[in-house]
């Protein structure tokens, strides 16, 4: 069933050592064959050409070994396991570059670490652990508050370098270290780097795959193990490839793309597999949009998502960290367990109806669904560009929302952008101004908020069986609080449009 036709330009960039990282040479394979990869956007040939034939004129003796092509994920894992070759199904011990945890799972992970390695044990590397309180922060729930305190104790004791602490719950701005939603904070603080291995105690850790790294969610026990050893046992996943081509319509966003794909392959369609996204459309996406795409890989059951890093990636990363990195790319002769080609120009805005992320429907076909509220937030849809998009639509519409519209910026930085950055095409207005004019709720303190319900006093929690259009990632029964709540997952454009009509709405009503 695997299609091994590779449609990539057999374009090989010249390298110089100072520009090595721009050109993405993978340096660990012994063979002298250069991996086919994508170079800077401008120089890529957009023609689809057929696969480059294996080099027949070289006998195995001259290359040293029969060269087996590997996918990006296989290469990242092989390198992290200090092996020259891995194949899907191999179980290998992998070196972890970054371990992330938050307030909900951190205490449990450290609890296990201490229980198993001893009360006086030290973590394997206090600079490779990032602790980001984000889930249940702005609440009076004592257990939730206690969890942040527990993390503070652990971080102090272990000298953890990166602990984005919060002590003043009444005013998030009074906390200089506090960031907010872990997956967005990881990216913004420069912890996501191409070619690395990142594990986190949260299913949406896969978001970081947007940076061309291996990133996946793990439980407390695995995290406890990593805390002590810096290693994790992983089974190498096979890769499903999704090639998205075509110009992105102006009303379409990365959220529509991933909902489209999940609707196609189902919530278990990528179980145990890597989802690799490439193609001209992907290359045109910003980092935040790529993050949205990879964020919901777990909703298809995927182990991790990856996007080949390019100039967009390097620009973003180099502005946030000086830690060196080495990107890798799938070989021309790598094997993929599935190949999907998507012509993005033909797609329309979609939603995921209750109660499953794969319950896909066209937004325009749901316009009879009356809604009670709209929620814009979370690692999936609460980033700066997500708010910019919603603001752009509100401004274009020039109307007020018909239902309560809750805005939860993912991080402090996003919150500041919402209040400071001018929205293009609006004569210099900020998102915050536009939201106010449209009658939305005031943007609230940054955190995961009601995406996953949370303690009863969580802002915007679904405490009644209402219908909500949300830019979040899951809509199983009870996800945002009430078991009978009905959640329609949507892009920021679609969410904003729905807020204006009081029904599920196609953003083209306001954007064309």
């Amino acid at each position, binding site marked *: 069933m695997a299609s091994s036709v590779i449609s990539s330009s057999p374009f090989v960039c010249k390298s110089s050592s100072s520009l090595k990282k721009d050109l993405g040479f993978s340096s660990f394979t012994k063979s002298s064959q250069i991996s086919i990869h994508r170079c800077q956007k401008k120089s890529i040939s957009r023609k689809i050409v057929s696969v480059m034939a294996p080099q027949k004129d070289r006998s195995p003796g001259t290359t040293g070994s029969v060269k087996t092509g590997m996918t990006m994920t296989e290469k990242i894992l092989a390198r992290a396991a200090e092996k020259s070759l891995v194949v899907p199904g191999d179980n290998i*011990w992998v070196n972890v570059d970054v371990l992330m945890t938050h307030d909900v799972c951190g205490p449990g992970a450290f609890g296990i670490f201490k229980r*198993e*390695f001893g009360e006086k044990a030290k973590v394997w590397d206090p600079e490779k652990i990032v602790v980001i309180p984000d889930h249940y922060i702005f609440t009076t729930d004592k257990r939730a508050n206690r969890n942040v305190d527990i993390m503070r104790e652990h971080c102090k004791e272990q000298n953890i370098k990166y602990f984005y602490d919060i002590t003043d719950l009444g005013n998030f701005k009074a906390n200089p270290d506090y960031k907010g939603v872990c997956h967005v904070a990881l990216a913004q603080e420069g912890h996501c780097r191409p070619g690395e291995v990142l594990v986190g105690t949260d*299913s949406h850790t896969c978001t970081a795959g947007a940076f061309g790294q291996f990133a996946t969610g793990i439980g407390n026990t695995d995290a406890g*193990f990593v805390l002590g050893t*810096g290693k994790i046992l992983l089974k190498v996943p096979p890769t499903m490839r999704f090639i998205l081509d075509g110009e992105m319509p102006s009303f379409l966003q990365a959220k529509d793309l991933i909902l489209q794909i999940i609707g196609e392959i189902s*919530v278990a369609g990528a179980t*145990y597999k890597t989802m690799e996204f490439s193609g001209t459309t992907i290359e045109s996406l910003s980092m935040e949009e790529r993050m949205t795409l990879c964020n919901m890989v777990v909703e298809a059951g995927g182990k991790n998502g990856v996007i080949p890093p390019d100039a967009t990636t390097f620009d973003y990363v180099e502005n946030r960290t000086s830690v060196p990195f080495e990107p890798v790319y799938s070989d021309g002769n790598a094997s993929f367990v599935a190949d999907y080609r998507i012509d993005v120009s033909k797609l329309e805005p979609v939603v995921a109806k209750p109660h499953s992320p794969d319950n896909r429907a066209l937004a325009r076909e749901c316009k009879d669904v009356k809604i009670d509220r709209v929620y814009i937030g979370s690692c999936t849809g609460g980033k700066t560009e997500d708010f910019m998009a919603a603001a752009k639509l509100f401004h274009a519409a020039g109307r007020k929302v018909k239902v309560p519209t809750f805005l939860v910026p993912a991080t402090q930085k996003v919150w500041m952008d919402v209040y400071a950055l001018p929205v293009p095409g609006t004569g210099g207005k900020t998102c915050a101004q536009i939201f106010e004019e449209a009658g939305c709720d005031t943007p609230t303190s940054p955190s995961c908020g009601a995406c996953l*319900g949370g303690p009863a006093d969580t802002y915007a929690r679904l405490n009644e069986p209402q219908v909500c259009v949300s830019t979040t990632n899951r809509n*199983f029964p009870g996800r945002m609080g009430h078991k009978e709540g009905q959640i329609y997952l949507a892009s920021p454009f679609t969410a904003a449009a729905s807020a204006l009509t009081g029904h599920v709405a196609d953003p083209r009503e306001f954007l064309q």
Partner: protein
Amino acid sequence: MATSLQFLNPTLFKSLAPSNKTSSSLSPSPLFRLNSTSTAFNFRPLTSSSSSSSAAIITRAAASSSGSGESLTRETFHGLCFVLKDNIDTDQIIPAEYTTLIPSVPEDREKLGSFALCGLPEFYNDRFVVPGEMKSKYSVIIGGDNFGCGSSREHAPVCLGAAGAKAVVAESYARIFFRNSVATGEIYPLESEVRICDECKTGDVVTVEHKEDGSSLLINHTTRKEYKLKPLGDAGPVIDEGGIFAYSRKAGMIPAASSA
């Protein structure tokens, strides 16, 4: 490859010599590929664990002693089953609001058990744990496809184990839930070959029996039907041992826990 991991972290306690125990006449083959559909772990030349092949299912040791590496005995067990359908996500297994409880704290773990499966919608008439009680009367959970999808929060398999469930028998699993079940040793994630959830009803009396070849059998005494279950493969011994730590410890990959 079986180098002890404490070399990577010198602050870990003194190393143990790799275990030389061979506690049974069976030695697992030194290197074997996993059945990719059902298992997630493969440990290389390890001493044979307590996995005797004359098997039945393990009785879960008390929570406070998990990870101590003690040998667990296997036995066939009988009990009532609780039947669920497809895509039971982690928020239905344990609503997110309860995840402020810390699974590694024994009192919290007990409480998690009392909330197990309370997130199920009204469609399910029966309560897995009767409100006010701490444990469930059901020993086996039967599910459909993609059991445990959603979050990576370990509270999900932990609460099921804490409530007293011994095994889940589902058509297929979401990978993080499966992995967490194996890592914690809380519950056996068994895979059926057919869609058992359509043929069983909550309250049916079932037996889960392990066979010599590593596979297991689910017998429904109420309907008089038997179902072959897929072998756990490499994941089995890890769960038998009590999870990844106990297993790694036995293999000499990490030192014993010490509170000195």
